[in-house]
């Protein structure tokens, strides 16, 4: 199913007023970075002051380098868990002033639009479901991957950034009372699919 046009967005979206995120890579700057680094700019909606920027990839970096040698898997899990916790917190804030959700689909839409926009400055491009608890969220230009040059060589790096996002989604949903398993899949960068499997209770 196609995600509906912005027109249908509730006004609450306006709140926060986050500008869309930079899409193209930061040229020569990358040389200083481990390839395929993500650049998130942090600044609080509170102070409308000058742009403020921060690089979260260093959480990822500092984090992975620490355990690189040992198991990649473990570090991935940690990132996922971090994402999970962050997702819980974010959703709690974002849904503070919204009406109660009607149903699962209502929630998924919220994730695809409001949530995604707040975090990644763009909506999910396409949301599909089989109506049996599986949703596929497709982002054609996933923000955390835009920094990576397309192609296969950085695939294993990408997993780190996706792990965090998977956690983000899972955490958000779980806080809204939906237990799920979220997996990510990249066929060609920077497009990315997140598959959400709802765990029926």
């Amino acid at each position, binding site marked *: 199913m196609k995600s509906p046009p912005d027109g249908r967005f509730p006004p609450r979206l306006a709140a926060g007023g986050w500008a869309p995120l930079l899409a193209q890579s930061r040229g020569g700057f990358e040389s200083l970075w481990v390839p395929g680094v993500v650049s998130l700019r942090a600044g609080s909606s509170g102070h409308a002051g000058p742009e403020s920027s921060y690089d979260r990839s260093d959480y990822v970096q500092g984090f992975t380098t620490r355990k690189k040698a040992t198991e990649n898997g473990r570090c991935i899990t940690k990132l996922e868990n971090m994402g999970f*916790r962050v997702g*819980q*917190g974010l*959703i*709690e*804030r974002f*849904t*503070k002033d*919204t*009406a*109660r*959700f*009607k*149903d699962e689909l209502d929630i998924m839409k919220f994730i695809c639009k409001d949530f995604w926009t707040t975090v990644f400055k763009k909506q999910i491009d396409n949301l599909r479901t089989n109506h049996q608890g599986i949703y596929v969220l497709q982002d054609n230009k996933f923000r955390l991957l835009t920094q990576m040059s397309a192609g296969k060589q950085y695939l294993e790096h990408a997993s780190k950034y996706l792990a965090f996002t998977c956690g983000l989604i899972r955490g958000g949903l*779980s*806080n*809204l*009372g*939906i*237990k799920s398993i979220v997996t990510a899949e990249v066929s060609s960068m920077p497009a990315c699919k997140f598959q959400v499997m709802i765990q029926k*209770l």
Partner: protein
Amino acid sequence: MEWFLVTSAAVILFLQNYPLYIRSVPTENELKFHYMVHTSLDVVDEKISAMGKALVDQRELYLGLLYPTEDYKVYGYVTNSKVKFVMVVDSSNTALRDNEIRSMFRKLHNSYTDVMCNPFYNPGDRIQSRAFDGMVTSMMIQVC
């Protein structure tokens, strides 16, 4: 006057309800309030389940008066994250109209959101937060 405030969270895993935070004035025979609030959750659940059918504008987080007992009024509120707030007020306290109650719940909710955002807080654990305590205390003082 005594009054009493409880927040409880739904653990979706078990579909059970248990308290995350309990505060009552006065604290003696708190158990009575426990029972009162525990039973009131039936109504909360009923209201939430009824909510599905309701229209958007009726899907408010504030659930209003759950039920009146002999000498208390029990009000309810539920967040999108299925956290239920229940407030028990001495029914003789006429100062508290629906609107006051509603805004008090808003206060609680904001404060709870901050608790959720404290990285050291594990969602689902009992709330032990100075900030939250302070907020509740101030609310109670202002009411009692």
